[in-house]
């Protein structure tokens, strides 16, 4: 028995040349990338700042955290949820036609490719650039924020939608055809039931991400809790930043719990 195991072990594939080459390339890249690590040096003692940050985060400004007026944390969180929610809806709606254009099983190759390039370009522009563009349209505030969230969501949402469309089971549609259904019925009973859970699940997942990314909007003045958070941090008011972060963490954990439950339900049907 042990002899047989030994023999089988001796016959294992030996691809050490390949492994060695990969290792050399990876280590080489790492050494190359280490050359970029530089710092202008901290103005103060870094450890002291870290301690301040931690103590601020663990001693949040409770008055601010439970201030139920328009300036308190709860309202800012509500505003952020609303921005993320509408932003996700805007993004999901724009993504649907884009995804159908770029699905290679529906449209000719060149058009699908052009669609994909368009989606990639939309994805490359960083959020704060979009934020600035939309502030020209709507003025600063939550409205610009939700449009920015929407455009930033397009990249991921349409990518997932394309995958869902390309995975469509065409047999269902064929059998509906054989049963004598018209085009509308084929879409209603053959395509929608296959796509809807997937589309909804993607949108909910993106809503989760948008909520986390909403801080960036604050940098350009596009609403939500980002701006107060960054102001508080830049002026070293760690208790205030701690209150905002505490609110954010609670909010994200709640939303994540709910969205995971909905998505599990959606995938199980």
């Amino acid at each position, binding site marked *: 028995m042990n002899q047989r195991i030994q023999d089988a072990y001796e016959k294992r594939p030996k691809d050490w040349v390949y492994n060695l080459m990969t290792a050399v390339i990876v280590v080489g*890249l*790492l050494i*190359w*990338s*280490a050359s*970029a*690590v*530089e*710092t*202008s040096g*901290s*103005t103060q003692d*870094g*450890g002291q*700042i*870290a301690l301040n*940050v931690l103590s601020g985060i663990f001693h949040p400004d409770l008055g601010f955290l439970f201030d139920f007026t328009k300036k308190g944390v709860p309202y800012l969180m*509500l*505003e952020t*949820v*609303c*921005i993320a*929610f*509408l932003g996700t*809806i805007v993004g999901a709606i724009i993504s649907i036609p884009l995804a159908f254009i770029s699905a290679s099983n529906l449209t000719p190759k060149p058009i699908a490719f052009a669609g994909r390039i368009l989606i*990639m*370009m939309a*994805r*490359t522009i*960083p*959020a*704060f*650039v979009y934020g*600035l*563009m*939309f502030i*020209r*349209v*709507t003025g600063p*505030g*939550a*409205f610009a*924020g*939700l449009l920015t969230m929407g455009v930033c969501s397009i990249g991921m949402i349409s990518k997932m939608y394309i995958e869902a469309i390309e995975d469509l089971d065409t047999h269902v549609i064929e059998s509906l055809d054989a049963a004598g259904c018209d085009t509308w019925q084929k879409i209603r009973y053959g395509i929608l039931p296959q796509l809807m859970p997937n589309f909804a699940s993607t949108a909910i997942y993106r809503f989760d991400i948008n909520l*986390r*990314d909403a*801080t*960036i909007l604050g*940098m350009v003045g596009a*609403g939500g809790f*980002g701006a107060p*958070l*960054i102001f508080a*941090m830049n002026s070293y008011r760690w208790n205030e930043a701690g209150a905002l*972060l505490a609110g*954010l*963490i609670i909010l*994200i*954990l709640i939303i*994540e719990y709910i969205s995971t439950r909905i998505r599990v339900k959606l995938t199980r049907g």
Partner: protein
Amino acid sequence: MIDLNLTLYDKIFKPKEYVLPNGKKAYKKASRAPIYVILILAMSALSVRITGFDMKILTTRIGQFFVILGDMFPPNTGYMPTVWNPLFDTIKMSLLGSVVGALLSVPFAMLASTNVCPSKIVVTLMRVMFSLIRTLPTIVIALVATLIFGLGTLAGTVAIAVFSFGYIGKLTYEEIETVDMGAFEAMQAMGATRSQAFISAIIPQVLPFYLSNCLFNFEGNVRYAAVLGYVGAGGIGLILNEKISWREYPSVGMILIALFVTVFIIESVSRMLRKKLV
């Protein structure tokens, strides 16, 4: 009404009854769609009120959106020589940050998976840590890092490493939990220690997914690193921010094109590698 597990909703909206040709009765539960539609509409109405969404402004002023975009073309090609350095800084930052974060996350991910770590308390602690780290926005981590480590790429690298730690850690412990434990048990039965069994029985199963996740994370980080410059954490975001505040849009266009090409190349290579892995 036999063996239909009826919820409150079904009691209010009765299931539809069909009589089949053989005399049996079939029930179709009332669709849940109306509830979802009402919920989504209510949430949308609230959001529209709070955010001040206004279709009229959007349709009349959307042209303004393309003003800046139009100014970016034609891009200022003369600016390209200055872009190279920050661009490579961004790639280096994301590469180093992704690798450091991904490597550091492995031991913690092991402690967070129920099939490897026997102690329930440790598992829970690790999971709470991972979810707390993932809730912290990267931009906040970067801002704190610039305060602690000073302005520059080190802060960006740290921020990316922390983000990758949380992201890869979560995916890895989920992956470890779904492996086939048969090989692990067989190795233990043959007298291998727990760690030996982990190395030879679990790592080969997890490794392809782990590497694939790492590549995917790296892809995303390159794009994300562009934002980090905004808080002074080095890389291409720094010059992007600078050129935007000076309203030199042709240069901004050049930066974005360079970023686009880089992301395109990295994504293509990484997709190719990931196809080989999984």
